[in-house]
């Protein structure tokens, strides 16, 4: 079981209030991603759940039991750290077995579980090596192995992929998602990368300056961002924001339209402008366009769309996909 509930939890370091009181429910078996820019308090929130930091106020319940002052060792949670935090003086086998040793699990049982975990993670042939002799991806798997052997109530991941190169990151993303499907254990995953959040999460928690901006499924956040911050943070390239007359015509202070919801044409459309930069990715063409009214907008065109610096293009927004925000940045419906 792994139901975690945060009740008016807040955290201050000295006079600095990094997390104002917040509430959050994490259901058993959910894959929850905390996402936000650096310094938004997402890692601190994870460390509060882990018990590596004290909450300044509020309550943390794990499976209905008050765990607010329970030391980390007793919370029954596993954590995978950003630096992997492997024990450099122990072999892979001993690293993975360490939590079992601490829990006093019998030797034979421990060996069986370590070998099972190693098999799942393709580490069997590395069991006798030291972490220093492994590649980044292998170290990552050892850290995960160490987390899964003790069958925790929930896994905590603190930006686990940020030290890997791009290709490996995509692979590990898929592996972790599959692991979650197999184990069906609650996972809480911290990242600053909205692509990781979108692809892995059942539920995304967007954090900004310690506050929860929005909680919801990836598509819900994409389709109905609750405010300007979420709208700008989720989706790549970023959503375009238009203010002024065009927005007022739609009855909003700010109008948001995603690059992929603009139709680009060489001949006709609602708005017109000149291309500043054209990025041809093959599958798509991203255009940075300087509109005639002086504003700049990003649009996605077809991979075959021909444009270069200075080309005049026309844009037609899909009115259905407009996001309307009021003067305080909140979504209007």
């Amino acid at each position, binding site marked *: 079981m792994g139901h975690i509930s945060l009740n008016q939890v807040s955290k201050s370091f000295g006079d600095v209030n990094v997390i104002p009181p917040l509430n959050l429910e994490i259901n058993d078996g959910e894959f929850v991603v905390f996402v936000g820019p650096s310094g938004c308090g997402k890692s601190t929130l994870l460390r509060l759940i882990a018990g590596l930091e004290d909450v300044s106020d509020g309550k943390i319940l794990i499976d209905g039991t008050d765990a607010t002052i329970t030391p980390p060792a007793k919370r029954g949670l596993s*954590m995978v*750290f950003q*630096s992997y*935090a492997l024990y450099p*003086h122990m072999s892979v086998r001993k690293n993975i077995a*360490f939590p079992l040793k*601490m829990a006093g699990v019998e030797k034979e049982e421990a060996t069986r579980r370590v070998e099972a975990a190693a098999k799942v993670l393709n580490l069997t042939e590395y069991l006798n090596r030291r972490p220093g002799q492994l590649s980044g991806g292998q170290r990552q798997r050892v850290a995960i192995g160490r987390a899964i052997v003790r069958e925790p109530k929930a896994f905590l991941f603190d930006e686990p992929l940020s030290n890997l190169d791009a290709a490996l990151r995509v692979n590990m993303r898929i592996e972790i998602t599959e692991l979650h499907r197999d184990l069906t254990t609650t996972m809480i995953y911290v990242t600053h990368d909205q692509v990781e959040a979108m692809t892995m999460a059942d539920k995304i928690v967007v954090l900004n300056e310690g506050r929860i901006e929005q909680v919801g499924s990836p598509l819900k956040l994409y389709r109905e961002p609750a405010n300007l911050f979420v709208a700008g943070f989720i989706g790549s390239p970023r959503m375009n924001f238009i203010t002024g007359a065009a927005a007022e015509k739609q009855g909003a202070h700010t109008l948001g339209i995603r690059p992929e919801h603009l139709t680009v044409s060489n001949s006709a459309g609602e708005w017109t402008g000149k291309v500043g930069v054209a990025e041809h990715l093959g599958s798509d063409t991203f255009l940075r366009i300087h509109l005639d009214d002086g504003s700049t907008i990003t649009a996605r065109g077809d991979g075959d769309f021909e444009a270069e610096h200075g080309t005049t293009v026309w844009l037609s927004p899909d009115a259905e996909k407009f996001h309307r925000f009021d003067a305080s940045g909140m979504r209007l419906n």
Partner: protein
Amino acid sequence: MARAVSTRRKTSFTVAAWAVSFLIFFPILWTFLTGFKTEGEAIASPPSFLFFDWNLSAYEAVNQRSDYPKHFFNSVIISFGSTALGLLIAIPAAWAMAFVPAKHTKDILMWMLSTKMLPPVGVLIPIFLIFRDTGLLDTRTGLVIVLTLINLPIIIWMLFTYFREIPGEVLEAARMDGASLRNEILYVLTPMAVPGIASTLLLNVILAWNEAFWTLNLTAADAAPLTAFIAAFSSPEGLFYAKLSAASTMAIAPIVILGWFSQKQLVRGMTFGAVK
């Protein structure tokens, strides 16, 4: 980026450096050689450098005249004993200061260092009187206590600078893996810090071995370590150069060899991390 240096330049620097360092090392070499001479050869003029009748008579004489093994044993007990005791007290303290720093950690560290600045002569009398009244005078236990206390700040400082290089996340991982504080220090921190602990141990054994203020003032016969054993040669009887050399060689050889292994760590330890 190393760059090419002309062989001539390198040769002249090499000759100069070897010459100077040989001169600096010469007194030690000379002491070592003289130990294998007879007393007559030891004062012969002109002195012979290598071509003399090598023999062990001086070593035999030293061992007959005094109880070298006893003093050696005292030195070992005092230096290793005080270092081991110091490590035992210092490891938890250094853990606390390196991994749970608080507002006053820096002040506490600086204060500990300041106790090291206390000139020994300023506290000689009270320590002497306390030791006299508690029967610790001229005991190994007494010297272990004093040397532990005077070297404790250095031990804590050295461990602290080594511990700080260990990533805190690894200890947090141990905590998440269910390790108690005792297990965290025993199974994770200590093995990871073995190189640092070893060099701390080495430097402190050297410092304690050579400590000559307290060992001379607080011992008479029973607990006298090698420093005091050698000091007995300050009032000579007859010809004694060969014997002095033999005794000196026996007193310094173990520690000079240990010292050579620890020269890199010595810098860090002796400058409290200010020079690395």
